[in-house]
């Protein structure tokens, strides 16, 4: 049940326990119990909403920043990653294999603020060797969801 439960919740975190119980063919109590276990084990970390900000009046600029760093003795990349992710404007931090070390996603109100973050905060950290900032122009798909998808049932209305 766990795998199926997670795959439903990943797509729809607003679904209620009663419906989950029906879809999974178990009782509401079992669903409740499993979900609280998953939360306790930090397998379910948070429940988010995917918002298409472009359609609102709120200005947001996002950037992906590639960061090369010197790992620190005894702590590897964890310490520097923490210093970066503690900024609330940082949306995600990933450690990557390949040409650079950390990929940082940043969301700000303007280009200027992003530039400010990179030059004042990020680049000045002593273990940061270099950064490369890429601005996001358009999101086509995010978290497995196609943004702006209009679904139309193309099928014939009745078929045998």
């Amino acid at each position, binding site marked *: 049940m766990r795998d199926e439960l997670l*795959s439903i919740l990943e797509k729809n975190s607003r679904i209620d326990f009663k*419906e989950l119980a029906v*879809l*999974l*063919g178990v009782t509401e109590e079992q669903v409740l119990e499993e979900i609280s276990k998953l939360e306790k084990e930090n397998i379910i970390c948070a429940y988010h909403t995917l918002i298409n900000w472009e359609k609102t009046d709120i200005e947001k600029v996002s950037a992906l920043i590639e960061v090369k760093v010197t790992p620190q003795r005894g702590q590897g990349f964890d310490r520097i990653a923490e210093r970066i992710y503690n900024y609330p404007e940082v949306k995600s931090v990933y450690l990557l294999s390949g040409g650079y070390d950390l990929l940082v996603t940043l969301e700000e109100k303007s280009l200027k603020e992003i530039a400010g973050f990179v030059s004042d905060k990020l680049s000045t950290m002593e273990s940061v060797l270099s950064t490369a900032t890429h601005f996001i122009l358009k999101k086509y798909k995010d978290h497995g969801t196609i943004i702006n998808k209009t679904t139309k049932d193309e099928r*014939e*209305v*009745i*078929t*045998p």
Partner: protein
Amino acid sequence: MRNFLSDKVINIKPSGIRKFFDIVHEMQDAISLGVGEPDFDTPWFIRDEGIYSLERGKTFYTSNAGLKDLRTEISNYIKRTQGINYDPEKEIVVTVGGSEAIDIGLRAVINPDDEVIIPQPSYVSYEPCAVLADAKPVIINLKAENEFRLKPDELLNAITDRTKVLILPYPNNPTGAIMEKEDLEKIAKIVIEKDLLVISDEIYSALTYKDKHVSIAAIDGMQERTILINGFSKAYAMTGWRLGYACGPKEIIKQMTKIHQFAIMCAPTTSQYAAVEALKKGDEEVEKMRQSYNQRRRFLINAFKEMQLDCFEPYGAFYVFPCIKEFNMTSEEFATKLLMEEKVAVVPGTAFGDCGEGYLRISYAYSLDNLKMAIERIKHFVEKLRTKQS
């Protein structure tokens, strides 16, 4: 001018679905639960392979029986799902959908007036195909109390000296019924004893929600007297690609391929290339879709239970088949009223045989949101009818 038409064709009843189709088509914002095909798009990697085959210029006829690679993959697939061995060279033919396989399968084995046993409710094309092949269709009216499974005594009662073929349509459209191994063993015993051939239409084999599907061909002594029909439409959401296949004894496949060669030449080439990829890498996608169907199935079964609408639990395909006898209406009346008053389209059970009277086929090849909306309307309709009755 003379009447040019064939009496045989004229006498075939048009599909009961057509009339409904025309009404629904005209109606604004009707919700249809009447579709017999998956709502999923064909998985992208399969479509991509089709496109790639076109880019490489794979636009010619294939061999009549189908691409060698595809037949090999089909053979592997049947081997890994059913444990049956079919020789890709001689025992498999790739067809234009499962429908063509049913047609040429019957035509390859029927002599005039041979009897073909068709359990109903079942897919609309068995009876017309049998008639077109000059067979005499003999209908078995399956019963709800048996969960629409074929019972040995029902089969025995239908067999005469002229019986040649039994069509076995499981997992079943429209009832969602399945036949489990024990059910099949009893049927197989009779089939062997009476020296019959089975045409087993297993197009929904990937969509079962209890144990894994078992083919009757996997039962001892049955492979040599079974034409196993399957295809890509339902499992891989590939209805429009028109691709199916038949596996069977080489003597029969040889004759089927002959008809196929003269009538069709070969199945669509692009579809065949895409299908190779589907069989090689599709298991995970099929399982994901199956899981979604299963969730919707549970949702509908639960909704009907809450409505107290009589409905056995179906374990196959993507249909539920609730009973509406309590309302003293024919299936067609009920479906028409439901459409007119609540704008929900379902298919009357009678479209799949007379014994479908009193039942509706409801498809769950729709998103949950869609199903929820439809269920609200059906609930409203049922409550209205019950208030009127009391």
